[in-house]
């Protein structure tokens, strides 16, 4: 299966990446990591891409890491659909101080717009 993971630098995104790397090892998925510009998280796209490369190398998984400029949600959906990915994977949101799940803006856009299967990792 062709799987695209979108990350912007938030903790839930890295959690989604780690879980997808584990799963791709079991399922022999073909993995691509797309780093998007996330206005609500601080590390730069370059350093997010570097962190993703390191996690992939540590796990011994070969995957392309690409950076997407522009509106994160729509760029992810466009890439997944143009390049015929089977699945788009994202972090499923962060927890508030009292434990409420809050869906990120990128995830919300993707869920409402994608025609490929979307997986939100909790």
């Amino acid at each position, binding site marked *: 299966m062709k799987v695209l993971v979108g990350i912007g630098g938030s903790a839930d995104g890295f959690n989604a990446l780690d879980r997808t790397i584990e799963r791709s090892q079991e399922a022999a998925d073909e993995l691509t990591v797309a780093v998007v510009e996330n206005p609500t998280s601080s590390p730069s796209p370059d350093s997010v891409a570097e962190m993703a490369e390191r996690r992939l190398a540590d796990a011994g998984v070969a995957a392309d890491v690409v950076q997407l400029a522009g509106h994160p949600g729509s760029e992810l959906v466009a890439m997944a659909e143009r390049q015929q990915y089977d699945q788009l994977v994202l972090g499923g949101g962060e*927890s*508030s*101080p*009292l*434990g*409420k*799940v*809050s*869906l990120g*803006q990128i995830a*919300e856009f993707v869920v409402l717009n994608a025609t490929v299967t979307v997986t939100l990792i909790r």
Partner: protein
Amino acid sequence: MSSYSYPDTVAGPYERPPQSVLDREGRQTRITRYDGEFEAVVAMYDAFDPADRAQGIPPIDTSGIREWLELILGAEPTNVLASQEDSVVGHATLVPDGDGAYELAIFVQSSHQEAGIGTALMKGLLGAGRAAGVERVWLSVERWNTPAITLYQNVGFRPQEDGGFERVMTARLASPGGASSEQ
């Protein structure tokens, strides 16, 4: 978490608990600060209707409920209960967000909704919070949950201008200098 904007006007007034009110069904309801009634609160959430869960809370299973309550019934958060006879029928909490403001959540058992208990509980919580020095409060609510949004608006919360699945609302309990209308 709290890069939100807050109303300039101070919300309220609110009465501080303890209070005793009749709900719209004529049931005697006590609004009190939480005082160690841990098992009674667990029992309320054990019986909680899953359809009334909001954004993943309360947790479904008892061990998850206990873990979550240990977090929010601790020393620093402000918790207020609504009780009838020997049962807890509602619970509201203010949890510090680590950024100087407080996140609010409120739950009323489905069998006791639409009886005015939520409003009494909210006012009691905000009164207790203000007495404890809380200045700014925010909450998030699914944007299709009109009854809850109306309740929050009626007790002084104002919506943030954002378009997510969750609507964020904020209220100011004291002016930045710390003075409230009830001093």
